[in-house]
């Protein structure tokens, strides 16, 4: 929390009457999920919280339910893409107008949600991504990972013809249009970069805002060394092939 103090006054939650939800994907994060839930409520008590427990073997689901969050328990581990999409489906089916994603490991600071919500509330964007790299400070990941991220950022920037600085950030806010798209189709493992391409192809408005992230509070990162190589190859392949894909149809409103 200390490094955030340098920021001049973070925006508070916009006082709006829209149904809003925070999607918290969590895999074995019993140590950090309670504070994430409490920090979301401290930012805005009107946020409902759904914790998507991605097949945890620890007490993640129990501690989340104990704090009164909605808990969706996946019967086995789907990976981050499948878990997050479960959250989008929940948000869509339950009629939420606005969703934010806050990872259960504590690296996303809910106090900064106001920065993400601004462009959505002003209807300037359909999806807002918090970027670690468009400002100074905060936790910026290891050196090798930063190089990988910057390669992806440059590739993606060329494809979408817009400057993207943090294509792997999962700290996001979405309006209903974006929720409907991701509820219908979301990439599988390591989804954010491909999701940005989907957003571009569907002509939704995506924008980045500078945020500061924290080092994960507890638990382990989901990406090891060998997995990083797989990550880069898989995402570059998906970006290239994704350019030639037909668009999916977003979920339709039933009313």
């Amino acid at each position, binding site marked *: 929390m200390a490094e955030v103090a340098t920021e001049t006054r973070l925006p508070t939650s916009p006082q709006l009457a829209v149904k809003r939800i925070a999607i918290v994907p969590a895999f074995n994060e019993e140590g950090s999920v309670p504070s994430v839930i409490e920090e979301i409520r401290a930012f805005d008590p009107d946020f409902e919280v759904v914790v998507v427990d991605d097949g945890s073997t620890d007490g993640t689901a129990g501690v989340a339910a104990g704090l009164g969050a909605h808990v969706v328990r996946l*019967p*086995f581990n789907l990976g981050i893409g499948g878990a997050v999409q479960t959250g989008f489906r929940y948000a869509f089916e339950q009629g939420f107008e606005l969703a934010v994603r806050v990872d259960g490991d504590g690296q996303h600071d809910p106090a900064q949600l106001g920065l993400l919500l601004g462009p959505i509330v002003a209807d300037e964007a359909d999806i807002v991504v918090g970027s670690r790299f468009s400002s100074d400070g905060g936790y910026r990941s290891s050196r090798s990972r930063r190089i990988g991220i910057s390669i992806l950022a440059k590739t993606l920037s060329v494809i979408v013809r817009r400057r993207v600085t943090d294509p792997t950030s999962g700290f996001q806010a979405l309006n209903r249009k974006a929720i409907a798209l991701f509820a219908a189709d979301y990439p*599988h*493992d390591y989804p954010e970069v491909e999701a940005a391409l989907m957003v571009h192809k569907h002509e939704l408005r995506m924008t980045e805002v500078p945020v500061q992230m924290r080092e994960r509070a507890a638990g382990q990162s989901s990406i090891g060394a060998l997995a990083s190589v*797989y990550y880069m*190859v*898989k995402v570059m*392949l*998906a970006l290239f*092939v994704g350019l*030639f*894909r037909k668009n999916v149809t977003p979920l339709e409103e039933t009313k």
Partner: protein
Amino acid sequence: MTPLVVSIVAAIASVVLILVVLELIRSRRLRERYALLWLLTGVVLLALSLWRSGLNTIAGWVGIETYPPAVLFAVGALFVLLVLLHYSTVISKLHDQNTVLAQRLALLEQQLRERG
């Protein structure tokens, strides 16, 4: 030395393999995760087809003196084995997950019936 026509045919076959895999990914019939080994197979076979002196050298290493293109078959066969082994692990995982899903569904149905 490898006959030129063998190299050409092998290169064309590798390129076709790569293109078919890419099209399967594009049309969402194959996930990237399960395509990578196939693409690697295609790229390695393509490289060995085009790099004719390299094929000779490798043939020398492994004691194939009369017919270097045999290395192409050997490498192709090795990759097919790898892909099959990979798929066996994938099927095993799917089998386990399917069991879990069936159990969850049956338990849910039972709960619904007792409430209903």
